[in-house]
């Protein structure tokens, strides 16, 4: 392995810890680096710099930290500038973002600046040694198809990667790495979009992405009252409530509850889908669930094709019985 191919990961943190997606990116990059010959670099911007040590434990050889004040709210103009500058410095063959708010915004802009290849929302990235190419697999047509995209030649490839699609490595606390401070400075004149207000919904308790059990409702619930009902069921089971896009667009539930292509990607041990038809755009967000239970009035609903257990019934009749039965124990 004479090759020295650098991989750069754009890391993100939540509550001072690397996000699960960042840990997954480090794991995937670690394995690719072993195969291709090369090293794993992690860039942490703004508040994320606190996770440098953790980044090394999860697989980074070098961690670049930039705590410029302009990066404090991960402003997309500032981040685009810094990622572009770091790429020019370390000349990676592959630059990985999560398919996050940051990745969706900054990855295309960085690829435009660097004349790079770009694949969004990848679920798999492999290196084909025979053809010496990177191969990216990504869901397209709302999850109804998969496309495999090859990178041409030695062009830099920028990818965003879907949450839960690659496995992290076990952290090794004795792993050694280097932390390098980036201090180029972000000029205030670069900032064209200014954040004036943030209205974040803080989730109480377990997040959907981390939940082991999810009870989820679709358009078939007919309104907010249906969500109150399935909320009781979720509480009894120690689970979290999710939704498809229709209830979110109808304002029955907040946006933070949306699961699917344009919402959260989840992988619980048990997913209970109630009044969900099973549109591809939703299914693409739940395919990694270990077990799926579906309750729907329509026997032909697509959701039954991808459920392990199904019940054709009106949820209004069945869910109260379930609640009673679970309260009483069996």
């Amino acid at each position: 392995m004479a090759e020295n191919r650098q991989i750069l990961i754009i890391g993100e943190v939540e509550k001072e810890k690397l996000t699960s997606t960042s840990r997954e990116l480090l794991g995937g990059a670690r394995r690719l680096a072993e195969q291709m010959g090369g090293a794993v670099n992690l860039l942490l911007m703004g508040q994320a710099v606190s996770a440098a040590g953790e980044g090394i434990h999860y697989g980074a050889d070098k961690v670049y930290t930039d705590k410029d004040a302009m990066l404090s709210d991960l402003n997309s103009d500032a981040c685009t500038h810094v990622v572009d500058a770091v790429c020019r410095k370390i000349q990676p063959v592959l630059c990985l973002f999560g398919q996050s708010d940051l990745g969706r915004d900054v990855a295309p802009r960085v690829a435009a600046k660097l004349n790079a290849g770009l694949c969004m929302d990848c679920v798999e990235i492999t290196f084909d040694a025979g053809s010496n190419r990177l191969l990216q697999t990504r869901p397209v047509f709302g999850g109804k198809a998969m496309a495999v995209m090859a990178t041409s030649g030695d062009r830099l490839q920028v990818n965003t990667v879907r949450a839960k699609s690659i496995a992290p490595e076990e952290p090794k606390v004795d792993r050694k790495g280097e932390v390098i401070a980036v201090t180029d400075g972000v000029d205030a004149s670069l900032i064209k979009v200014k954040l004036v207000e943030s209205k974040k919904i803080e989730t109480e308790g377990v997040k959907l992405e981390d939940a082991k059990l999810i009870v989820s409702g679709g358009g078939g619930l007919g309104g907010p009252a249906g969500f109150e009902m399935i909320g009781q069921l979720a509480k009894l089971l120690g689970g979290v409530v999710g939704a498809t896009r229709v209830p979110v667009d109808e304002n029955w539930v907040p946006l933070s509850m949306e699961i699917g292509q344009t919402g959260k990607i989840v992988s619980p041990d048990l997913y209970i889908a109630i009044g969900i038809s099973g549109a591809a755009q939703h299914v693409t967000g739940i395919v990694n669930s270990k077990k799926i239970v579906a309750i729907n009035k329509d026997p032909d609903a697509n959701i039954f094709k991808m459920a392990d257990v199904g019940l054709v019934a009106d949820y209004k009749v069945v869910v109260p019985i379930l609640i009673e039965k679970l309260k009483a124990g069996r």
Partner: protein
Amino acid sequence: MDIIVFVKPVLDPDMPPAKFSVDGKTNRVIPPEGMPLVISPYDALAVEAALKVKEAKGGKITAVTLAGPFATEILRKALAMGADEAININDPTFEDSDAFSTALILAGAVKKIGKYDLILCGRQAADWDNGVVGSVMAEYLGIPSVIRAKGIVVTDGKLKVERVVANGFEIYEVGLPALVTLSSEIGQARIPTGWGIINAAKKQIPKWTSADLGMDPAGVGKAAARNQLVKLYSFSPSRACEMITGKDEKEAAGKLADKIMDMKP
């Protein structure tokens, strides 16, 4: 306010998954017979957002599409909703353009249009689901961009854009001209009125070619693509579903409760 809205014809994303099929030899989707392409739903929302800005501030809306079958139908839909003008960009050298070539071509159209304050498009097209062309076009034009907006307000020559993020919303202030991509949280796109449809049918839709935009044919189309499509295949995850039955709903629900208790982590 002069607004440019980009719209794309796509296979109806709400079509039944069973009708969706891919030709494995050509790596292309086989469009179901008799099913017309529709305006990409997020692009219809971009037209809606443009109309809302125009209603508040006055101005002109130009709808633009890049080639493809059903281009005229899509543009007529945008006109019927209330756009003032439409342009159909069409040239054989543009076929199989990737997101970067597409952004380059569309930026060329923006430059030819000349006067504009705001560019709007959908957050992603419902076929390739990239969500890239808007951001890249803004880079090529050297203007700011905000993606995944649920609302736009223009005040004192500036934009206030409410943007959708994973756990809520953020409000950004941006100078003009700027590019904004629209997300579903903005609400429904309006249905064209009968009068709108009649009006739209009367309008001329000019065609712009590569030469009109001064494009270098080597810089766009299939040869310029930065990633090559190696394989496209249908993906329909399926599991063997055990259907629960009972003499009545109560019995079936009871059986399901037992199943859930067994599977519960």
